[in-house]
Structures are given as C-alpha cells and as structure tokens.
C-alpha cells in the first residue's frame, strides 16, 4: 500500500477557504454597496414605521416645501406626504423587482437548461431569445400594458420578459463551455446522469456571471419601472413607486425641486449600491 501523503496541502491562505462570494462581499467596494442597498431596502421595509402619513392621504396643501406642517420632505402636487410616498414607493419597487428579476432569471436559466438537452430544443430556445431581444423593450412594455391593463402585473411581465434572454443566453454560453471541461466529461464517465450533471455539476460553475448579472439586472429593473411610469404605463395609481414619483415630479423641477430630489436620490443610491456590488462580485469571481 502506498504511504499516505501527510504534508500540508498548498492552501492559498486566507481567502481561499472562504467562498468567493463571501470574499467579494467583504471588499470595501462591496461593503459600501451593501450599506447603500441595505439602507434603501430597510427604508422600504420599515416604511410603515418611518412615515407619519398614509402615502395616499391628501392633506389639501399641495407642494408645500420640506419641513412644513409635519411633512418632512414636503408634499406633492396633490398634497400627499412626500416622505411616506417615497418610502412606500421603495417598497413597491422592491416588491416588483424582487419578484420580476428572479422569475426572469429562473425562467431564463430553465430555458438555457432545456436548450442544453437537445440540439433541436437549443435552436428553438435560441430563436425565442433572439425574438424577445429583438423587440425594443419599451415598445414591448407599451404593448404588454395595453394587453394586460396598467398595474403591477405588466411591469413584472415586462421586466421578466426582458430578463429571460439575458440570463438564458449567458447561462447557455456558460454551459457550452463548461460541458466540454474535463470535470464534466469525468462526471459523465463516472456515470452521473444528464440532468444531475447539468444541475449539480455544470450549473454551479456557470453561476458566477449569473450572480453578477443579477445585480446588474436589478438596476435595469429599477430603470425599466421608472421608464414605464414615465410613459404612463406603470404601476396603478395611487400607489407610489419611485418611477411614478419621479415622473410626477418632473414638471415641477424648477418650481419645487425637492419634489424630484427624493426619488432621484433613492434611485441613484440603489443603482449605485447594486453596481458596486456587481462590480465587487465580478472582480472577485474572475480571480
């Protein structure tokens, strides 16, 4: 019997033991990102506690400047408290995005996995992705909203639709590379079945760009919601969202700049935080 090799393994000290995502999250860049995103998310979650007014209550005093009459950020053109609209707006956005982006990502991944099963399916899925990508996003948004009627649903559907090919293509490309890798061949030779091979072996190895994409997609979703609201096809009134608060504020930009400042700041912080996060993840996983 061969003797046991007892020497210490060539461990890269420190970071190697940790999962790369965790390592990424401890970089300064990511920490700032986490704090920004965390603050915004928390503000959304705690909206009922942080705001003293109902987001739809109309006080009758329109466009009062910040600090007047118990309105910390002032009121909007219909006399509603801007702070609570902002907080609840974050909430709505988060609900929409947190639903739509993961669904899109999951569906995209599911299609990519499906494509990996058979070349014919691959062609079908590929063409479907091409098709969705080929439709200009906002026109699609207009059409979907026209079909479904305004509300949350079309926003979710549009974001989901937009994300499917993004994730699908990325994963498909990853699978194509990974399944020719020796470890995949090795698993196959070891008797691992196709489904298991795809999901347990290959998928985790394709995950890095997807995780980065997730952060990117979240920012895209924030914009998409905003753009849809701007075109008047977003979430139903009187429910506030960041996007519709912003587009509602635009006419008053010179007259009441504080009106737009809140949502603009929040959108910027959120997107900034998410981009910092995605960048950190990207750097760390590419090492």
């Amino acid at each position: 019997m061969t003797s046991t090799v007892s020497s210490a393994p060539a461990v890269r000290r420190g970071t190697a033991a940790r999962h790369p995502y965790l390592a990424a999250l401890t970089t300064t860049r990511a920490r700032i990102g986490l704090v920004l995103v965390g603050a915004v998310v928390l503000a959304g979650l705690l909206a009922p506690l942080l705001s003293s007014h109902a987001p739809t209550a109309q006080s009758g005093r329109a466009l009062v400047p910040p600090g007047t009459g118990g309105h910390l950020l002032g009121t909007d053109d219909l006399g509603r408290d801007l702070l609570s609209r902002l907080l609840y707006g974050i909430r709505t956005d988060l609900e929409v995005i947190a639903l739509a982006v993961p669904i899109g990502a999951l569906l995209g991944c599911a299609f990519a996995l499906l494509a990996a099963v058979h070349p014919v399916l691959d062609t079908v899925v590929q063409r479907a992705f091409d098709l969705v990508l080929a439709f200009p996003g906002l026109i699609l948004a207009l059409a979907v909203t026209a079909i479904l009627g305004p509300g949350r649903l079309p926003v979710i559907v549009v974001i989901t639709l937009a994300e499917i090919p993004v994730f699908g293509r990325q994963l498909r490309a990853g699978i194509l590379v990974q399944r020719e890798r020796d470890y995949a061949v090795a698993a196959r030779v070891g008797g691992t079945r196709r489904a298991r091979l795809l999901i347990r072996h290959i998928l985790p190895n394709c995950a890095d760009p997807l995780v980065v994409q997730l952060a990117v997609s979240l920012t895209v979703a924030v914009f998409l919601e905003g753009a849809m609201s701007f075109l008047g096809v977003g979430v139903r009134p009187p429910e506030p969202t960041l996007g519709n608060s912003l587009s509602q504020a635009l006419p008053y930009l010179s007259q009441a700049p504080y009106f737009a400042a809140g949502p603009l700041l929040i959108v910027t912080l959120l997107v900034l935080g998410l981009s910092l996060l995605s960048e950190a993840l990207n750097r760390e996983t590419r090492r």
Partner: protein
Amino acid sequence: RSAVSVAAGEGGARRGGSLTVGIHVDFTPALLFTQSDQALQQRLIYNTLIRYDEKLRPQPELARSWQYADDGRSITLKLRDDVTFHDGRAFTADDVIFAVENLRKPERSAQLASTARAVTGFQKRGEHELVLKLAHPVANLFDLFEFMIITDRHTLDDALKGRRLNGTGPFRFDRWRPGTGVRLSRNDRYWIPDRPYLDSVELRVYSHPDALLSALRSGQAQLSYGVSGKHLAPLKAAPNFRIKRYDTGSGAAYVGASVGTKPSDDKSFRQAVAWAVDRERVVQQALGGYGLPSAAPWPRSSPAHTEADRIHYTHDPGKARALLKSSGVSTRTRVPLGHPSQPLHTAIAEIVQYDLEQAGIRTELQPHDSATFQKKLISGTMPALWVNLHGFAQVHPATLAVSAYPFNEAKNTSGFRSKAYTDAVRAAWQQRDADGPAAHARYQRVSDQLLEEAFIIDLAIQDQVEVAAARLRGATLNKFSYLSLDHAYLA
C-alpha cells in the same frame, strides 16, 4: 449658425416672420373632419362658413349672409364669390354641399354628423347662393357652420392621407412630416386683402409636456395651447410670455356613473358623489389653477351658464354622507372607478378617490389606456364610476346633448334614459337658434335634468389657455379650437 438663435426667430416687423406653434398631438389627417385634440391647423388651411364672436353670435366668413325661412325649416346662404382654393379653383356652392354631405358619412365620425343629417336637401341658386333644407328647426345649425371646414372636393383622398391639403385659408399647406408637424406658408391670394401678415407657420409636435414647455421657454416655439395648467407655473413668471385664458374652456372634467350598475343605479348615491368631491381642489391641484369649479357642464361663455347651476353641488362631505346613509347603499365593497391613464385624468381620479373615501365611498382606480377606455365608453361597459373629460359645452347648448356621447339623450355611456331628459333636449335642439328668456328656460330644463339625475357629475371646466410669446399679437381661437392667424403678427 446656432439652432437656438434661428429657432428664436429674429426681427419684429409687422409683416413677415415665421411662427412656430407647439402642439402636443401631431396632426392626424384621418381626423380631419372630427373634433379632435388637435385642430389648430383647420382654420389656417381652410375656412368655415361663419365665425362665432364672443357671445356666440355668428359673423360672416365664407358665407356673407344668411336668411332663415320663417318656419325655421330652411336657410339661405349667400356665399363669397371672391374666394379661390390654393390651387386656383374658385370656391362655389358645390363645395358647401360636398362639405355637408361629407360630414354625414359615418366613417368621418364627425360629432356634428347628427346636425349635418338634419340637413335634408340643397337648392343651388347660382354659384354662390345656396338653400339648405332642414328636417326640423335646428338650434345648433351655426355650430355646424363654425365647425365644418370647406375642403377641396377633388383632392379629398390626398387630404385624408396628409399629402395635399387644399383649402381657401390664409396659409398653404407645404408639408406634413409625421412626428415633426406641419409646415404652412402664406397664401398670397387670400380673400382678405393684405392678410395674413406671417410668412409661414409651423406646427411642431412636442408630445411630452416637458418637451413642449422647454420648447416655449427656450424660444423654439412662440405659441401653444397644449400646455397643461400644471406645467404653466414656470412660464407665469417669465416676462416674455403672455398667458391668456379663454372663457370657453377646453372641455370639462366629470365623474360618470353607470346607472345600470350598483351602486350607481341609486340617484342618491350619485348625488352623494356630486357632493363629496372638492371641485376647488381639482382645479387647483389637477388643473394647476387653470379652470372653473362647476357642477354644470357649461363654461362662462355658454348661454346656458348660470352661477346657481355652477355651485349647485359644492364640497360637502357631511351632506354626501347623509345622502349615502339615507339611500341605504352598502359601502362595504370597493366601487370601481375607471379612468384613462393619462397624467391629468389620473390626477383627477386620485383626487376623486380620496374625496369619496372621506365621504365613506371606497373606490378602486381602474386605469385604462385611452383606446381601451374609448372602447369601453362606446360599448357602454364602463364600471360604476369613471372619470373623464368631455367637450362641446362651449358652443350651442344643444350640441352638447346631441353630439357629446356622454350626454346623448338616446344612448349614452351611463345608460341613462328618461322621458324628461329626452324632452328637454329635443326642446332645446329642435328650435331655431335664439337668444332670450324662452331659450334660456329651455337650457335651464336641460341643466336641471343633468344636475338632478347626476349621471354625469361635472367637476371643473378646464381653461383653454393660450401661451404666447409677448411679441405675438392677434392670434385667436374659434369655439372648436381652430387657430386663426389671419391678423396675427410678430411685433
């Protein structure tokens, strides 16, 4: 060259110059014969037979004079004989006959089609005199004359495609560039001597309100009727702009009620709604202050307008609650409140929703894009309550009741029918146009019905607002929002 200075247009001569009018909806040739959101070019390219003055008294245009038969069942028009179309062809009575017949066609979907259909026959007396036979006396006949543009009958197809618009108006049609707008240039052979002053007019599309506002503020456009009250604030302070309100208004915001649907089937409920809404707030917050709170549809210029009707319903949540209680309508379920998803409509709907809630009526907003909303309007499948704007109150009171669908006595969105209302409307319509106490009594009957039944609950008359560069003088609008620049010039 700088695009900024070119657009601002230099020079201040009385004669000459170029005017850019900012419009928010592009010219739509398919709607040439319909009262639409954007009709500014109608009276620039074409003429109408008459023109109302401030008090709705008809003044001659292409028709020099007119003579009613005593029974009110025919009218004789004397037409101008010195008018030619842009292509040089002379204007004759045949062009008027063609115009009336054209408006009767359903596919033109002209709102005044019912009035046009009341014209049952024509009798030409020479090239420039015409007798119109009427089925019955028609009170709003002159609305038709004010509304009906006289187009060249030989090039109608081209006109409907937006390629060639041949009229008798002060400006020739140069070119329509979809999305950009319409270019017009001076008609040197216009029948008013030495008019117009301006060399050219451009109607330029700024579909987004912010874009329109920026165009005005940066001097790219000198005139607009499309700026909403909310957006006017930054212009109010600007010294180089003049903001003018027209008494006629440009439509009115209302809450409609489907009388076939619970709980709107209950008159007390509808009246409660009428009491619940704070009309002042609608004007201030949704219309930016440019409007008139009014429980009746009539603008100040209308002969049917009375102050008593205007304040028939005021903001009184207590009364609303009392009415609601007495009616015994259940307020447990949310009442659907439909509205088009444009910003203005949405803002009004939000106000209405909040105010109703204060009175104990909980509603749920149901936005629809405008085409869907329109389909629902026409097919009569509206929810119990809805918010929308209506027009046609600025002209003859009868026109509202026969041409505006929400008020139509025979068939309307609310599904409301009553003999009293029908009688009142017919009485007002099937008369010769007249002023005086008798006529006012007839209008009052209509108003009373409307206020009592409350199937259309008017909230506010939106002001027709003109925003013009201070150096622009003499631009006027007719009752159907046709822009007249006959005497306009840039100082």
